[in-house]
């Protein structure tokens, strides 16, 4: 691997307007990709990992301007891709090829494999049909199929074979870069392994640079030199594969990796305590403020003046998230709190004591918190859900909610966007390498 940068992406953004009514008035924006920066070095395999909906596929499409980026910069061999003319863009799209997840829908069912593979050659101006056929035959053989398969139709092939043909189609135009979006996710078992291995062989043989997009940690671990972890349109951690997988820094990466079940049959349970607070990805149209992972983060940083245990802090955050759920009214909340417990007592302190029990808050809390929980309970009794939320929010103000962390370059090749790794910010690093003391020393030195 050389250090030559083939493709560089700076603050890439892709937003989609949400419109309403006849006049298609814009009422919001889905921020699918929200400021992503990375570089592809010549000959490397870079992986983008994340849950569905995190914007990894949109990133790939934006790179090719199949989705026009709304902001940011893409440079290919130091040329501005967003500035390309039509003919330059066509040449760029020859050199950067896309391979998609679903091989079933990637082919026109009415074209033979030969025709499908000749098409890109024709588009890019190769008029000599004998030469086209020679190239296609060669490409098919290189992906482990037979030149005679040219005459067959896509439906005659299995999923794995179709994905091989898709790779062949990407290769016929002799590209520099392959953007592979979940190339093996539709395959399983040995077929998956075979196609992934083939992609690796082709990468070496044709000296390709590969951007591999996958939600599957096992796939990126096997294939990629470096990986970037995406969450809700942003990269939260980026670095050499081994480093990121073996010493994950960001709480999201840690939660993601700890949710991969162990292959050791003696370890039956999967949960290791690094789970997120809630199951679901927030809506990309309504991205949380500050660090976008904070509502799900178990390592959310308490306020500077927090004087109780981190366990209590976490329970208080859970209480806050509970209040901020989509309750239709306080009555629904009361019903949920009452369920399974003793009968609901009419009285001022009822909500407060229910909340304290439900979230196992300790007898004594810091005074401010004590008051806030009592006031929140009183607000709920007045049917004032918004007031209750406000009370709890006031005592749980955290840097994670207020400021958006950026990828630090504290670790030269392994960067992470989390306040806990920022020496200027409160909170301790999770991997033990950066204790608060170390952070303070560093801050003092600056």
């Amino acid at each position, binding site marked *: 691997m050389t250090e030559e940068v083939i493709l560089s992406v700076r603050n890439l953004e892709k937003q989609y307007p949400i419109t309403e009514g006849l006049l298609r008035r814009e009422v919001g924006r889905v921020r699918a990709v929200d400021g992503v920066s990375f570089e592809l070095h010549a000959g490397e395999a870079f992986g983008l990992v994340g849950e569905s909906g995190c914007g990894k596929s949109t990133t790939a499409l934006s790179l090719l301007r199949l989705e026009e980026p709304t902001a940011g910069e893409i440079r290919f061999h130091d040329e501005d891709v967003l500035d390309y003319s039509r003919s330059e863009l066509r040449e760029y799209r020859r050199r950067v090829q896309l391979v998609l997840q679903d091989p079933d829908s990637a082919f026109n069912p009415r074209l033979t494999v030969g025709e499908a593979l000749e098409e890109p050659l024709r588009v890019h101006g190769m008029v000599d049909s004998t030469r086209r056929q020679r190239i296609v035959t060669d490409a098919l053989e290189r992906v482990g199929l037979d030149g005679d398969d040219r005459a067959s139709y896509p439906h005659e092939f299995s999923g*794995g074979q179709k994905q091989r043909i898709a790779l062949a189609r990407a290769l016929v135009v002799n590209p520099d870069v392959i953007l592979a979006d979940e190339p093996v996710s539709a395959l399983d078992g040995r077929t998956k392994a075979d196609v992934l291995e083939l992609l690796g062989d082709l990468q070496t043989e044709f000296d390709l640079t590969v951007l591999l997009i996958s939600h599957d940690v096992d796939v990126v671990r096997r294939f990629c030199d470096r990986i970037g972890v995406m969450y809700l349109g942003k990269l939260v951690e980026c670095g050499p594969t081994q480093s990121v997988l073996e010493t994950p820094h960001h709480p999201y990466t840690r939660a993601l990796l700890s949710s991969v*079940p162990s292959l050791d*049959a003696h370890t039956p349970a999967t949960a290791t305590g690094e789970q997120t607070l809630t199951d679901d990805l927030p809506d990309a149209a309504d991205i949380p403020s500050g660090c976008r992972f904070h509502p799900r983060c178990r390592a959310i940083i308490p306020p500077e003046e927090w004087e109780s245990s981190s366990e209590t802090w976490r329970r208080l955050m859970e209480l806050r998230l509970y209040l901020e759920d989509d309750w239709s009214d306080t009555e629904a909340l009361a019903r949920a709190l009452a369920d399974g417990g003793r009968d609901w007592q009419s009285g001022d302190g009822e909500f407060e004591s229910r909340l304290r029990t439900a979230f196992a808050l300790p007898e004594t809390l810091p005074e401010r918190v004590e008051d806030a929980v009592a006031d929140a309970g009183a607000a709920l009794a007045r049917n004032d859900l918004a007031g209750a939320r406000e009370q709890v929010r006031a005592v749980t103000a955290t840097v994670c909610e207020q400021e958006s962390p950026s990828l630090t370059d504290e670790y030269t090749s392994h960067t992470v966007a989390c306040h*806990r790794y920022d020496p200027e910010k409160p*909170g301790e690093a999770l*991997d033990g390498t950066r204790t608060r003391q170390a952070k303070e020393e560093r801050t003092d030195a600056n």
Partner: protein
Amino acid sequence: MTDPVLTVDGLRTHLQTENGVVRAVDGLSFTVGGGETVCLVGESGSGKTIACDSITGLVGPPAEISGDVRFGDTELLSASERELRAIRGDSLAYLFQNAQNALDPVYTVGDQIAEAITFHRDVSNEAARERAIDLLQTVGLSRASERVDEYPHELSDGMCQRVAIAIALAAEPDLLIADEPTSALDVMIQARIVDLLAELRSTHDLSLLLVTHDLRVVAALADRIVVLYGGTAVERGPATDVLERPSHPYTQELFRSFAGERGRRNRPRSREGIPVEGCRFHQECPHVVDACKHTRPAFEPVEDRETHHAACVYHGDDYDDSTVMAEVKSTSEFDIDTSTGGERDD
């Protein structure tokens, strides 16, 4: 072990197609004991889904199904549709891969759970609704009392799968057949569903027949494993034994492929399909001998273990099993090394 909840003996499902008979399931036998989790492991096309569909009577003519399938006191293959309807969704529940498709979009989730209850139990609508809310809580849905009135499209994929599990549990089944229950889900939600299934089988005394190709899910949940290839079992045994000492050449290759080990020929598999004569794996097997080509090998104990069997001649008396067992690797050797060093934030 108690009496098996499900006994499958010599199950065959043959499908008539234009190109002749497809032997989708071809002599499959296994049992699921009370409270036990058995995993059918195999690649797409190995017949694992159609085996489950055949067991539950979801495959009808023109498919030809033969063999013995005993569920409790009932012989399922000869049972009438009426008998089957009384069993399915009651003592035997089915969980599908794609919950979004399994749920009806025009009914609230509460109605769908309540339907599963009232179909089999003589209870009032109010009682069924209360039970639906209980079940939603059991499967870990927040705001269950409000969610019960929501429609499937208002829920995320993970929540839909939880609702599907709630429906499956509605009539307190003895056996839950789950076909790739986590494959369509994201990693983190997948982990939650795996945890949920692990918890439910102990709290609800549930036997689980789990169909999956994901070895990580197998390692997390399985008590016993049945490895399928070409519609038939090639290896079976306790999960720890099979994962640590995969003994059939096919199982070994399947596990190795999971780790992406190199060194095999990288060609697409032949288009002629899997041979019906002899061992179904013989064309691809690196250790093939003449005997493999003509007779279907019988299950032989692996290294004299009582419960771990492989259908391979090398584990019989005539051959030396060290040929196939020399370089066996446990799946745990392929694991990600996440030495999540240091302590958490506390």
